């Protein structure tokens, strides 16, 4: 396996920041914008191996698994395309937001401008409004500062005690 120091990518920095923050479980459903992160989750090097990856059939199920881990005292992250946030709304509103169980969400932002495919346009236009509606904090990932953005999202989640989204606009 290639030495990570020679291939440090935004995805690598993001995941390494999670490992260093004590995250041990990652789950979710892939998005092409997140493919770099999923590739590392599927074949982690020694430094990322502490992050066990469980592929999920659907985003709400992934969030349920991550929430169970959080209830048990662990730290888990859920990766998804923004389309999956719709599936997650019931778990967010009838579990996380009433049991006060925060988890970190990594959410891609397909359709953030009007050049993306039609199926992404509505959710892309409303993504941050949807998060605001349920008072779910978010941080938009700065690819030049992946570690700082990831840390900011974790710290926001810890401070606000609400599920927090790290939004990924550019392909990892």
């Amino acid at each position, binding site marked *: 396996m290639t030495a990570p120091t020679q291939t440090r990518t935004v995805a690598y920095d993001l995941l390494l920041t999670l490992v260093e923050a004590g995250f041990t479980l990652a789950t979710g459903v892939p998005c092409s914008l997140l493919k770099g992160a999923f590739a590392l989750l599927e074949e982690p090097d020694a430094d990322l191996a502490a992050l066990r990856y469980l592929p999920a059939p659907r985003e709400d199920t992934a969030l349920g*698994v991550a929430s169970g881990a959080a209830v048990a*005292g662990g730290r888990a992250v859920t990766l998804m395309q923004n389309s999956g946030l719709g599936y997650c709304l019931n778990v967010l509103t009838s579990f996380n937001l009433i*049991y006060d169980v925060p988890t970190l969400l990594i959410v891609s932002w397909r359709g953030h401008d009007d050049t993306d495919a039609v199926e992404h346009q509505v959710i892309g236009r409303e993504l941050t409004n949807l998060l605001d509606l349920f008072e779910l904090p978010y941080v938009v990932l700065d690819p030049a500062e992946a570690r700082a953005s990831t840390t900011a999202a974790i710290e926001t989640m810890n401070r606000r005690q609400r599920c927090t989204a790290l939004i990924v606009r550019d392909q990892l």
Partner: protein
Amino acid sequence: MALTLAAVARQLLARHPDACVVSSCGYPSRELYNAGDRPGNFYLVGSMGMAAPIALGIASIHPRLMVIAIDGDGSLLMNLGVLPMVAAARPRLIHVVCDNGMHESTGGQATTQRADFVALALAAGYRSAIRIEQPAELAEAEPAGTPTLLHVLTEPRRGGIGQRVQLSPRQLVERLQPALN
């Protein structure tokens, strides 16, 4: 004598006193609560279909702990996709499906046609799955490995349902973690 959800809950608590038990919203949570409240019981009040995912998450953090998920037929049918995910993760998990063929919590409406949850679980990769129709079969069930699914045929409750869970969701979380360690 056919099994009831209440009898299943009582038997599971008696047989697995150290297990963490996650129950699906509606009657499963209420029956478990009234069968014997304890800190290791984690009642869902919403998020139908999430009992097994949340149980899997707990089991993934505490791999030696026995975790039991109590689903209904309606709540598992809502999220059959969880079966292969549970199977792949190989948790120490007993997935109990109390199948009365109806959405009893909302008035007894039909679910879909009766499903063979044993076949579904085995096809998804569960290590074992057992169909249970009589109380003695539940008491004697010896799964050959986990994750396992117990497909328990139950009849609807005859008397009134017991009280709702009296603890707040936040209280349930706070008391669960110490019970797991």
